């Protein structure tokens, strides 16, 4: 069996497995949008602040579901991989001629497919409630590419956690950590409007701020080269680091088993 075929089989398994657990796909589809609805309704008044970049808080906040959805699918996928380790499935796979690259890429392939479906859903809901993508059709394509890159980057860290710990509980416990990165960012207000100094510094140091701002720039500004360059660079950088560390962990994990 070729590498591509192995990858396809494992990616298919990953997607089917997610679909068979409704909580794993309903939550990322519904929860981020529910939070978007609540925050947009609650913070619409913030658009009257001098210097706020748009008069629609929904448009401003549309970047949030992309990031939160990526977090959900990452943790779910990491949990699935950890479960494969706990149940011995990985051990059995190790006895087959399967290549370790196929395991990682196949697993992430499933995460990426789910991430892409989520991104299309968030975009569709955003457009349905009246958000206009300022960067146009090409900008929408770029947004989807960036969303997939972010899912890949986060997914590789979910896989890393699963491979390092081999414990579903440990992967679950990562969720609050990811959540901290999301909340201590520029998700609710532009960084220049954050009044509390330490929070502004923390948001500026937080890579998630730049991922949000890159998506947001396509929605409310059009083409902001700086925001996009930063967003893509961070997403690609995180993906490279995550994939490298995951590959190393997988090698160790397979050697151990």
């Amino acid at each position: 069996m070729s590498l591509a075929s192995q990858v396809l089989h494992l990616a298919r398994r990953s997607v089917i497995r997610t679909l068979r657990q409704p909580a794993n796909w309903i939550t990322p589809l519904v929860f981020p949008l529910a939070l978007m609805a609540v925050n947009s309704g609650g913070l619409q008044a913030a658009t009257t602040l001098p210097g706020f970049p748009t008069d629609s808080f929904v448009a401003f906040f549309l970047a949030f579901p992309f990031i939160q959805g990526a977090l959900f699918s990452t943790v779910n996928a990491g949990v699935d991989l950890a479960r494969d380790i706990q149940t011995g499935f990985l051990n059995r796979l190790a006895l087959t001629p399967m290549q370790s690259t196929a395991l990682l890429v196949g697993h992430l392939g499933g995460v990426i497919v789910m991430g892409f479906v989520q991104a299309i859903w968030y975009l569709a809901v955003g457009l349905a409630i009246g958000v206009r993508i300022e960067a146009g059709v090409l900008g929408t394509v770029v947004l989807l590419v960036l969303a997939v890159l972010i899912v890949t980057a986060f997914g590789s860290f979910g896989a890393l956690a699963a491979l390092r710990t081999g414990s579903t509980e440990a992967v679950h416990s990562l969720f609050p950590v990811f959540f901290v990165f999301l909340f201590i960012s520029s998700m609710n207000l532009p960084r220049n409007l954050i009044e509390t100094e330490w929070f502004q510094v923390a948001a500026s140091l937080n890579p998630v701020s730049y991922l949000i701002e890159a998506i947001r720039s396509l929605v409310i500004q059009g083409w902001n080269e700086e925001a996009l360059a930063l967003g893509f660079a961070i997403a690609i950088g995180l993906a490279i680091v995550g994939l490298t560390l995951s590959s190393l962990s997988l090698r160790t994990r397979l050697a151990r088993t």
Partner: protein
Amino acid sequence: MRSVFSVALAVGWRTLHNNFTTPSLLIPGIAFPMFFFVAFAGGLSRVNDVPGFQFPVGYTAFQFVFVLLQSAAFAGVFTGFGIVRDFETGFARRLMVAAPDRRGILLGYGFGALGRWALTATILTSVAMLAGMEVGGNGVDVFALYTLAALVNVIGLLWSAGVAMRFRTLQAAPLMQLPVFLSLFFAPVFVPVELLAGWLQTIAHLNPVTLMLAAGRSLIAGQPAHIVGAFGAAFALIAFFAVWAGRGLRRAEAAGAS
């Protein structure tokens, strides 16, 4: 009645012991409210400058009340998770057999939820004071605020206990959590109700949490308002969910607490 209290004290002590000696139970209960407080009060303090936003003791106190009530509700819900765990491990079955009066079991979980929240509230209040939160209310106002939050804790516990005893599986966890989460967030979390967007304002006006938030915020500001309505709503919800949880207990008994 003595047997109810003896069972309640034993169950309450066990719930607290489990919570305080298991980091995976203890830390999220403390960390999440703290984290919401920091994210909302720190990241959104500029909302204080939104035209029409007037809160005399500042945005930190405005958010503190929300997070205090949220932590109370979730301490109740998280205790519900513990009830489910007891059913899943078979402990609840043994508890039901051993307890001379099973109402004490519910009361005991209530003690546990309250004790659990007391620790979170203490830490949250300390952090808020260190962050420079202003308190305009006097001792009576502050006492009333914490009493209101304790009632919210009881509501959260009774709701989740009812669900836990009906389903007796952790798969019901979202059912315990989500309605509480939605009730809290479909209320004026970030700004007063008058500044909410139209659709959210309509929902918020129908949501009893809005009344409790308004009362809590008025108490911390030292300008009590909506007190009768908020406490009335809290007691009505407690009465309703006490019946819900009591019937759940009977369902669990009928099912043999399996």
